[in-house]
């Protein structure tokens, strides 16, 4: 029997959104209930929602990191993560400063709750592909520690968040993808550009 004290999807979304805003990180969010939750969590000028394009949020964050020379973050669910492992490998290949947060609730919840078995450890997959560090958390305290680690360790890092299915879902975001992309682009342009290496 599991002894985890699980972090809710809504709490995860609020915490990551606030951390990214506080640290000035652009945040890309994979599609599904997580995107809805982040949109519901508050003002997100610094957020790009991938309402479609499953599995691509980390690769977009990698492109932003390469172009800006600064750290970025990607938040996605387990289904997105499995589909987008090529993006994870690309981040690792170039050692880009992407904090990659994977919410593992063990299923495809937005499509009806189909169950998904965890293929070993997501945390270990991050370092196996070449990330500088990775952590596994199951609580708000653990998440805070991992996000603090992301602020101090350079290079790509993966935070594997243990979640659970069956939580209520937020409403769909009303922002269209083009509107969101323009908003995200404007937010990025207003930041002080960093040298591109």
């Amino acid at each position: 029997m599991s002894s985890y004290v699980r972090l809710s999807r809504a709490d995860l979304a609020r915490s990551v959104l606030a951390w990214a805003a506080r640290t000035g990180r652009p945040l890309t969010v994979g599609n599904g209930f997580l995107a809805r939750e982040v949109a519901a969590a508050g003002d997100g000028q610094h957020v790009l929602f991938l309402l479609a394009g499953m599995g691509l949020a980390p690769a977009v964050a990698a492109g932003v990191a390469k172009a800006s020379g600064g750290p970025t973050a990607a938040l996605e669910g387990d289904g997105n993560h499995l589909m987008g492992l090529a993006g994870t490998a690309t981040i690792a290949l170039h050692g880009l400063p992407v904090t990659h947060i994977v919410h593992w609730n063990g299923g495809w919840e937005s499509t009806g709750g189909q169950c998904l078995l965890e293929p070993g450890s997501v945390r270990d997959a991050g370092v196996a592909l070449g990330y500088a560090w990775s952590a596994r958390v199951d609580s708000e305290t653990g998440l805070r520690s991992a996000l603090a680690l992301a602020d101090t360790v350079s290079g790509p890092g993966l935070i594997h968040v243990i979640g659970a299915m069956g939580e209520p879902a937020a409403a769909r975001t009303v922002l269209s993808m083009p509107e969101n992309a323009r908003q995200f682009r404007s937010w990025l342009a207003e930041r002080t550009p960093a040298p591109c290496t």
Partner: protein
Amino acid sequence: MTIAPALPITQSPVTPSPEPVTEAAGVVVGVLERLGVEFAIGVADSQLSDVLAAIAKQVPLLFAAREDAAVAFAVGMELAGRRSAVFMKNAGLGTSLDSLISLAIAAEVPVLLVVGWAGSGRDTLAHHVVMGDRTIALLAAAGIEHDVVRRSGSPGDVTAFSARAASAARRHRPYALVVEP
């Protein structure tokens, strides 16, 4: 919180080829220069090797694990204000359709593609031809404007190609240079 130890990773820099630039490669590089491309990212293709060597002389050449990740990477670069080109074999176009349609086109972020047209012209390998025969129709169905860079006769007009690529970018649409083998 539990932490996994990191493993060392090594990367080799891409060394520009000393070979002279082919006519087809010159057209591709000419278009990329006119569009202000600063990076190229993608998956290598043997039939694009001369083109990739020529691009590497001009801008950093980056590699992705798969073509759809390269398209998403380019979307991120474009949103951050830096133009890039995505290179791939036409087989990778199939892998990239969701990235191109559900991300780049849906979000109205322009992407410039350089696609090796395996299975056309002198490339008669059966497992290439099956994709080669469908490449142009696939681009059209996906709403991706394109021009063909030829290997025989005139390779193409850099000015005209650049104008069409720039027009597509202004309309937030993808554009592809399709390079014959």
